[in-house]
């Protein structure tokens, strides 16, 4: 079974001698990743810095990141899952032939070399980007790499970490988990948290038109989501909290301008490795913070009669 084996970025900085970027282009998308964490840093364990580290890039095209890597493995588009599954077989010494490998666009020698380097590493790490997690197969592609990392621990230390996108996605994920048990895709309609990605995840709810109101904080779905989702946002009363005018705020019924978090509103941000960092505002803003707006909306809602009927305090069997 799967699971997740990971570490904080400081561990990568101090110990990782074998770094694999999979389906991402850190040179252009996370430009400080090499210098701050993965490649250039020296440590007591890796005194020569870059020279003590090996970097592998796995991607469908030769991006700028390929120049920074020692080894570039160009996988055929849409074959990541197959490649990772082959690697899972190879680390366990399953017989794999040249013919089986052919469809990945790589040779058996390349894979054998990769496997022996993974096993020879003292501390290996996979970073995976949207080229893996947002292409056909989606969560299963991520699961594949996480599983490979977990299985590699039978031989040496190995971890895996997603390269998340913009905004404090990780922070939302962390807090939802401690308050509800689930990271995202949660419904509260029965008075307690229920989880089912695909059913309750935002994009699916909007595309199917399962909601009659939308409240958007810290995101611009109007710019990123598929057209049916955007059409539905325009159709229902949509309320947006954002410091700026966004694609979503333009189609919203209400846009409340808020103070930008980290610049003029304090709080905590969670880094991609779930390390919390304090946000210390540098500027004052005439606008209220997101937190204050939400709190005031909540207070106003408490004035109204509760929408919940008579429900028990506790449920033994959930729906």
């Amino acid at each position, binding site marked *: *079974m*799967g*699971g*997740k*084996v*990971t*570490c*904080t*970025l*400081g*561990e990568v*900085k*101090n*110990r990782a001698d074998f770094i694999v970027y999979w389906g991402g282009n850190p040179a252009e998308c996370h430009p400080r990743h090499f210098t*701050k*964490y993965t490649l250039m840093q020296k*440590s*007591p364990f890796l005194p020569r810095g870059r020279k003590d580290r090996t970097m592998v890039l796995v991607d469908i095209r030769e991006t700028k990141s390929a120049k920074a890597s020692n080894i570039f493995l160009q996988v055929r588009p849409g074959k990541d899952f197959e490649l990772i599954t082959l690697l899972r077989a190879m680390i366990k010494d399953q017989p794999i032939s040249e013919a089986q490998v052919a469809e990945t666009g790589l040779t058996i020698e390349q894979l054998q070399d990769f496997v022996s380097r993974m096993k020879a590493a*003292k*501390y290996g790490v996979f970073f995976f980007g949207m080229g893996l997690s947002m292409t056909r197969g989606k969560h299963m592609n991520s699961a594949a790499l996480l599983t490979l990392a*977990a299985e590699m*621990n*039978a031989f*040496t*230390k190995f*971890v895996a970490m997603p390269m998340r996108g913009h905004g404090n996605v990780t922070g939302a994920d*962390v*807090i939802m*988990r*401690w*308050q*509800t*048990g*689930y*990271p995202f895709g949660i419904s*509260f309609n*029965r*008075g*307690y*948290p*229920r*989880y089912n990605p695909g059913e309750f995840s935002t994009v699916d709810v909007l595309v199917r038109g399962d909601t009659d109101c939308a409240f958007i904080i810290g995101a611009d779905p109007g710019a990123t989501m598929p057209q049916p989702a955007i059409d539905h946002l325009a159709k229902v009363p949509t309320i947006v909290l954002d410091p700026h005018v966004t694609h979503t705020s333009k189609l919203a019924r209400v846009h409340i301008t808020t103070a930008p978090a980290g610049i003029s509103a304090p709080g*905590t941000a*969670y*880094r991609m490795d*779930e*390390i*919390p*960092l*304090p946000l210390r505002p540098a500027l004052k803003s005439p606008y209220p913070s997101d937190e204050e707006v939400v709190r005031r909306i909540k207070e106003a809602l*408490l004035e109204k009669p*509760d929408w*919940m009927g008579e*429900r*028990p*305090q*506790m*449920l*033994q069997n*959930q729906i």
Partner: protein
Amino acid sequence: MLRITGGTIYDPANGINGEVRDLYVEDGKFVSSFTGGRTIDATGLVIFPGGVDVHTHVAGGSINFARAMTPEDHRRTQAFIRSQTRRSGLGGMAPTTFATGYLYAGMGFTTVNEAAVPVLSARHTHEEMADIPIVDKSCLVLMANNEIMLDLLEAGEYERAKHIVAWHVWAAKAYGVKAVNPGGVAAWKWGKDANQLSEPVEGYKNTTPGSIVTSLAKIIDELGLPHPIHLHCNNLGAPGNITTTLETMKHLEGHRAHMAHLQYHAYGGDDWDTMKSESAQLAEYFNAHPNMTTDAGAVLFGDTVTITADGPWQHLLYKLTGRKWGNLDVENETGCGIVPYSYRPSNLVNAVQWATGLELLLLIDDPWRVFLSTDHPNGACFWRYPEIVQLLMCADFRKECMAGLPPEIMNRITLPEINREYTLYEIATIMSAGPARALGLQQKGNLGIGKDADMVIYHSDKDIARMFGHPRYVIKRGEIVIEEGDIRETPDGSEYLVKPSFDPGTDEFLRPLFEDRYCMSFENYPVEMERIERPDLQQCITTE
């Protein structure tokens, strides 16, 4: 103002063993008397001080990791439904924060100690603790694998190491220090473990797990932290680890110490096939050494999720069970592993573990030194404590349970020979007065005048598990929070902290070392006092 009349009181801190007395509460504290106010007639009911959990994992990066890994458990567990004054939540193996508060209060516990906090994510732990309602909280910072401290000990710079420890306690806004598998987590980061107490830790020449233990215990005594070193020994869960545990205890002579979840450290045998309980041997040594306290870390049969800073053990469990595995290494400080697990009576190893936990509770003769715990969620979930109370109080029930174990277990455990039954007074000691004293929380576990009015009122019931699982009332600082299983109020609890003194130059000493090893700026590392909701600063003490 609240008056509780006619109840039968068990208050070990004041030597009151089942006497009928009236209690008066004003402004959240016990007072000697007053007239007027609301009266609860507790005639025929049993009154305990509110429960105190000395060792649990309820907030922070690792339990939150466990939550993410177990959606299947959240779905099958009981749900708490929101109301206009109460947040929703889910119980189960890794309950959500709000549910954690409801579940602890629901069985009469009013203070909990989160036992493992890495400084790097302490901010996260405190944010979570602020979302645990009703109970008061404290937390322990993880130190035994902090590489900066280990380097100083290696170099013989003991005084400097002491300042570093004090600095970290304050930086994490913690209440004490936890040492997990000293030297072993640091070694795990290379996929290795530290098994021998007297062999140098991977990467060091002189520093051994044993020397780390002794130095840390001494540092904590000298700093005067109210709670002594909170030690998770090396070789957790391994057959034959009794040798390591006894050796560790010898390293602690002359110092105060709290030995965490001793059940996991009391095994004989050479491997899984020959593993047996060595609780008798351990209890004998423990009984003769009053410098130590411990909590049982008892195991109950059923599903749970194991989470510990002991990465090597977790990888072993993953290999044994083939189930999900989560692991998180935190730079320079610690690491944690997470594996869902089912303890089964038919499994010989699990059965030995189950018996060992109970044996320790029964063989350690001073209830002031052994406390109720399951190392939640590792041995079992905390909301199953009433089942352990029943096992301790009813020898017949224990025998019934033992009948379901594999027959070949009988020469591996001593439980069948033990007839001791806990009294209510002793239960009140291991569940409340004892852990409060070990934590150095003088306001807790005590129904005396001027103390915090935390108490639990039970129906007297022959069914012990039901009695302790369903209190009549739970009162927190004078406020009725639970009444017949219904959550009445959800007040916010306090957080206990200490500020041991350290050389003001420690910041400047640490900064370059920090920036060398960590990947966040030094200023962002310590948790600011403003980030703690309802802090309650406790004084350091003098130890001889």
